[in-house]
């Protein structure tokens, strides 16, 4: 086989596979633009003949509260976690103090606990302090236990030359000022990677809201979608429009920040 035929063959295989991979998502979007009658045609047709943008208008009136809750939690999680994880990452990476290595070992050890082991007692704790059916359980624990984020940021802080810190110290900066003004701008790529992973975790979380929330007006998009499934069982077009709305922000973020996202995943646990 010549190099050219191998190349063509490889393209062909990859194109077929790529089409298979995106098919479900394309179907989701195409169905969201169909009329109700068209979704019931057997065998199914793929493209809507007459795109029904009104489906999105109909869905839009149902989701503002869920969208708001999802956005609010994502912002609290990302901002809070980046602050807490970068503070700790800076201290673990660049300050020398007694107990540091022990505390870091504790942090790494907690990474191997499966979530379910502490989820049930967390539920009890929140029941006790009145946090059930509030948004606190969906951001406070995550923000205060940023294990992977702290680890990744620590690695990043350690690569910055000491001279930068010394110069700022001579200029009379306090440690917090050094961290905030000098060091944080140096680790922007790592911050982006951790921020994106945190956003995804918060945005796509199903288990947390399911367990900790009862009131419908507090629910996030994934749970609302699951609720819609019962409500609009026969209105597949509306269901798929709602699903599309929940997916679009993630796709936009993914395309904009693909590099950091993949970086975050590959750094996760593989590099010492």
């Amino acid at each position, binding site marked *: 086989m010549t190099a050219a035929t191998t190349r063509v063959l*490889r393209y062909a295989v990859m194109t077929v*596979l*790529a089409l298979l*991979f995106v098919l*479900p*998502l394309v*179907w989701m979007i195409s169905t969201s633009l169909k009329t109700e009658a068209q979704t*019931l045609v057997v*065998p*199914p047709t793929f493209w809507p003949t007459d795109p029904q943008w009104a489906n999105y208008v109909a869905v839009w009136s149902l989701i503002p509260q869920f969208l708001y809750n999802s956005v609010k939690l994502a912002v609290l999680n990302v901002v809070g976690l980046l602050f*807490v*994880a970068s*503070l*700790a990452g*800076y*201290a*673990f990476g660049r300050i020398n*103090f*007694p*107990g*540091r290595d022990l505390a870091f070992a504790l*942090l790494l050890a*907690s990474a*191997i606990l*499966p*979530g*379910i*082991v*502490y989820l049930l*007692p967390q*539920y*009890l*704790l929140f029941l006790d302090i009145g946090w059930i059916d509030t948004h606190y359980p969906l951001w*406070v624990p995550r923000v*205060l*236990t*940023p294990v992977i984020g702290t680890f990744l940021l620590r690695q990043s802080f350690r690569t910055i030359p000491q001279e930068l810190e010394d110069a700022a110290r001579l200029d009379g900066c306090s440690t917090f000022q050094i*961290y905030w003004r000098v060091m944080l701008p140096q680790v922007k790529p790592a911050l982006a990677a951790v921020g994106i992973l945190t956003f995804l975790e918060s*945005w*796509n979380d*199903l288990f947390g809201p*399911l*367990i900790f929330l009862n009131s419908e007006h507090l629910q996030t*998009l*994934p749970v609302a*979608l699951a609720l819609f499934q019962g409500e609009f069982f026969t209105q*597949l077009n509306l*269901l*798929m429009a709602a*699903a599309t709305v*929940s*997916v679009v922000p*993630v*796709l936009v973020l*993914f395309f904009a920040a693909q590099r950091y996202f*993949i970086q975050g*995943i*590959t750094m996760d*646990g*593989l590099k010492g």
Partner: protein
Amino acid sequence: MAVQAPWRTPAPPGTAAPTRPRWTRRQVVEGWVFILPVVVGILAFQLVPVLVSVYASFTNWTGLSSPRFIGLGNYLRMPSDPLFVSTVVNTLYFSIGYIPLSIVIGLVLALLCHGKLRGMRVFRTAFFVPYVVNIVAVSLVWFWFYAPTQGVINGMLSTVGVQGPEWLTDPVWAMPAVILVSVWQGVGYPMIVLLGGLQGIPTSLVEAATIDGASPLRRLWSVTLPLLSPQLFFLTITQTIASFQIFGIIFVMTEGGPAGATTVYIYYLYQNAFAFGRMGYASALAMVLFAFIGLITFIQWRLQRRWVFYD
């Protein structure tokens, strides 16, 4: 360190300088203040809850009543609980399907996506994008893909004259259907990890094997795979742990059915805790899962010496 703590008198000439690390008061205070939120968080939200969970697993706590200590009762009950046994079997079924498929297909995709080729970014994105989509949207879409008559899959099968099964409502086909969705969604992760590994392999090694006359398959087996073994090892551990905790797809697509065919361990645990009011039993189930994950990870760790190759 050039900075000398001011209160320390200089060592008399001729004696060795003290070598143990010294801390300034400021470093101690600042260090601990900076890590305080994380330390408090891990103690309050992870380590203490785990201890509570250990205790709860020895009680008959319902979530509402005050718990009563019942010793090993919850643990002794498991072997005779038919649902416990069948959910363990279902979880292993899922794992045995999911782990090798996701790693092997991830490897194939990584090999295809490795190297410079026009439009490669588009292909990588296509394979990876399901990974970032939320599990409820994924499950809803596939739920309709699998629909017996107006579903896309059976629609396509019927055009070639094949009568497809009733996927999610057929006890035989429900689990394979769930595995297929999970692999479709999750395979981007092993692909990216292995792609990272492939990019770390020096091209000179592969070229040397080519010059020695090794066939592509031979090069893959004798050069590439051994050099990818750290990544493959990492994936067998993380994919195993992930497969034991599959929940979202089951919750939205099958609710454990039909006839319990897809009731996996975590789903049963969730039911016990939040539907059946058996918090104590659910805690014991969580402990067993934790122990099992620990055991499997330990075994994989021991086995790595036989096949993982670090240069």
